[in-house]
């Protein structure tokens, strides 16, 4: 009797699960999110923005050409093993399997890097992940979009050059690099050294051990050597501590330039007044005053259907970054549909084509209501980064204010390094790079 009951319940659950996916005109997107753990609040904003954007597309346009977007979250806790489990769990859901995998964790990115090619699911890492994967000939399934760490470092140096009145003025200047002592922080070294050689400035690299909540020694060192600028390559609690300690040791905050993982409200608000004047890079800007965010407000939150519990965080840097993830995902699906049939759910392979042929020019961005919100983007078979532009924002004590136009990276230099590194990877793994002239 008991066995029969269990079998019955099991069959019912299996049946329910099966019927849930029976409706065919759906595009499934698996979300390996994290809402607990050390970066839980970041994950909540980011995935919240992404989900809200997709909900808005469903509500306003009825999906992508009539194909409804569906999604399911899977908690990774920012943990590699859980991330792999989520990847495997999500990959066959929905009528055509998971459309895209975007884990928002460099560790998880590396853990699934080789699986995605076998399973034919595009792996999109916007602003993190493996830099040399921007060479699409070696990494057809990986898209480190908009800008990689190397492009970002180069763009920051270009911005410092602009502020100093020309790149030739960088000669003889001293730039401090305060970095998180981990793989993430060290990612900056190779490119900064190259740039220092090229422009003739001096780099002072100062490591901060994880988690970085004590930086007295580092800032005393900075006070002694008086660099012209300090690049803050930080993470989590390290950012707010850096700003507070800088204020204590009297280093001017408008000379500190943060990377995009150091430039959100989560970093500046805890630092209080000490953060005033601090400048940070970002591939999206803060603010709710863009048509795309207004659409989310009117289509989703007006109907009490939004994902964010704290509505004050709508329009924050990380929330808007989530919206950028949403825009790129939806537009790739749209591009794929234009080739493979409008109004049909796409497979991972077709969406990969969509990502590779994604072209968000200024006209398209205007139609999406995201002019100035994110940089224009053109992906190709060779170049999976497509842009490499960032904007700089300054914290005025209560909110971020944009202080620059889109600043480009030193593309030839960065591209050269990416190709070199990708070629070394291809050699180690025995991969023959694709011939892009033969791709359609």
């Amino acid at each position, binding site marked *: 009797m008991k066995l029969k009951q269990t079998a019955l319940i099991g069959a019912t659950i299996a049946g329910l699960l099966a019927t849930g996916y029976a409706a065919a005109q759906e595009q499934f997107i698996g979300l390996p999110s994290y809402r*607990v753990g050390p970066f839980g609040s970041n994950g909540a904003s980011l995935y919240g923005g992404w989900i809200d954007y997709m909900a808005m597309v469903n509500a306003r346009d009825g999906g992508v050409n009539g194909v409804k977007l569906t999604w399911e979250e899977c*908690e990774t806790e920012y943990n590699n093993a859980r991330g*792999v489990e989520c990847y*495997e769990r999500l990959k066959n859901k929905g009528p055509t399997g998971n459309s895209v995998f975007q884990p928002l964790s460099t560790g998880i990115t*590396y853990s699934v*890097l080789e699986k995605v090619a076998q399973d034919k699911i595009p792996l999109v890492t916007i602003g993190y992940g493996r*830099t040399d994967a921007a060479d699409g000939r070696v990494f057809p399934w990986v898209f480190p979009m908009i800008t990689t760490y190397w492009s970002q470092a180069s763009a920051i140096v270009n911005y410092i050059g602009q502020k100093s009145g020309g790149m030739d003025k960088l000669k003889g200047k001293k730039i401090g690099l305060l970095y998180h002592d981990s793989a*993430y922080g*060290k990612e900056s070294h190779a490119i900064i050294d190259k740039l220092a050689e090229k422009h003739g400035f001096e780099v002072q690299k100062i490591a901060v051990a994880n988690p970085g909540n004590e930086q007295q020694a580092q800032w005393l060192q900075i006070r002694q050597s008086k660099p012209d600028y300090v690049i803050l390559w930080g993470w989590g609690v390290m950012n707010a501590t850096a700003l507070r300690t800088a204020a204590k040791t009297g280093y001017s905050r408008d000379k500190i330039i943060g990377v995009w993982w150091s430039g959100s409200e989560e970093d500046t608000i805890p630092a209080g007044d000490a953060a005033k004047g601090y400048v940070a890079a970002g591939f999206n800007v803060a603010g709710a005053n863009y048509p795309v965010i207004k659409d989310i407000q009117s289509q989703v939150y007006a109907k009490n259907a939004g994902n964010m519990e704290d509505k004050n965080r709508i329009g924050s840097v990380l929330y808007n970054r989530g919206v950028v993830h949403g825009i790129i995902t939806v537009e790739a699906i749209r591009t794929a549909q234009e080739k493979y049939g409008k109004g049909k759910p796409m497979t991972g392979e077709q969406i990969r084509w969509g990502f590779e042929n994604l072209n968000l020019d200024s006209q398209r961005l205007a139609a999406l209501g995201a002019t100035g919100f994110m940089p224009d983007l053109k992906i190709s078979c060779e170049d999976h980064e497509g842009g490499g532009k960032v904007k700089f924002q300054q914290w005025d004590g209560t909110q971020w204010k944009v202080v620059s136009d889109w600043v480009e990276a030193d593309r030839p230099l960065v591209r050269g390094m990416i190709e070199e590194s990708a070629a070394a990877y291809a050699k180690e793994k025995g991969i023959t790079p694709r011939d892009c002239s033969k791709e359609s």
Partner: protein
Amino acid sequence: MLYREAGQFKASYQEDQQIFPIRQDRIGMAVILAFFFLAVPMLASQYWLQAILIPVLIFSLAAIGLNILTGYAGQLSLGSAAFMAVGAFGAYNFILRIDGMPFLVGVLLGGLSAAAVGVAFGLPSLRIKGFYLAVATLAAQFFIVWALVKFPWFSNNSSSGVITAQQIEILGFAFNTPESKYLLTLAIVTVLAFVAKNLVRSTTGRSWMAVRDMDVAAEVIGIRPMRAKLSAFAVSSFYCGVAGALYAYTYLGTVEPEGFSLDLSFRILFMIIIGGVGSIMGSFLGAAFIVLLPIFLNVGMHAVFGSAMPAGMASNLELIIFGGLIIFFLIVEPHGLARLWQLAKDKLRLWPFPH
């Protein structure tokens, strides 16, 4: 009834000393092994093999390693994840740098390098004990991860310290499907688990337990504490090292030093506390509990509540239930899940005539 031993006579020392003296245990073990070696690869889906079974097996091996050190030899360690890292990076470098290095030898050498590092960090155990030793092994945890990031040689000059495991090939057969990787992991874990089970019943294992229970007394009866402690560190780190190599090669494929953080060391420690300190079977139970429960909770939450509950609340609730269950099990059975089985077995052996 199930465990009636009537008629099982042991006529020789050999029979008396075998690993499983009760016939039912032998049959049970054969059935379990047959199930996991034959039935599972045929029945289980890719998700089960790749995302559930392989990690459980690998963490079981790491937990056995820590259990040898903490459970049998009584030396508290917080460096298990770092020893796993040494094993993973060691195997990677041996296979990368020596042409034609067979995979299994590479893994073995990775394990041996972990053993060597383990002995070095085990030296303080001769002088310090208990929680102080845990702090000393904490140094291993931080030092090793730092060194792997600091010196690019270890990761073959990768800009971010990440290594990508090579293709596994044994005698020309490429292990690239989940089934084959699962079987390879299972075979290595089974062999090493039996070795461990035998080791703890041997002279070495008995000397570990003697040192654990009272080192002065052990010394008096002629056990050399230095040898016992350092051999425990060596064997334990070897197991962790092999687990680390498997973690890189059969599970993730690509690993970064930060993946082997203190957090992972704690997880392995929780596995043996939940599973049973000083029990090989407990290592398996504990690993299964710690790896699987959060996943089942996550899946269960989705199945029960669907989208009705905000994802953030569901995630936090999972953690609360997970923590609550750990406390519940520790209160109900402080000696771990393995002890529950032990009690049940003792009752079954007497049944139906308990005295």
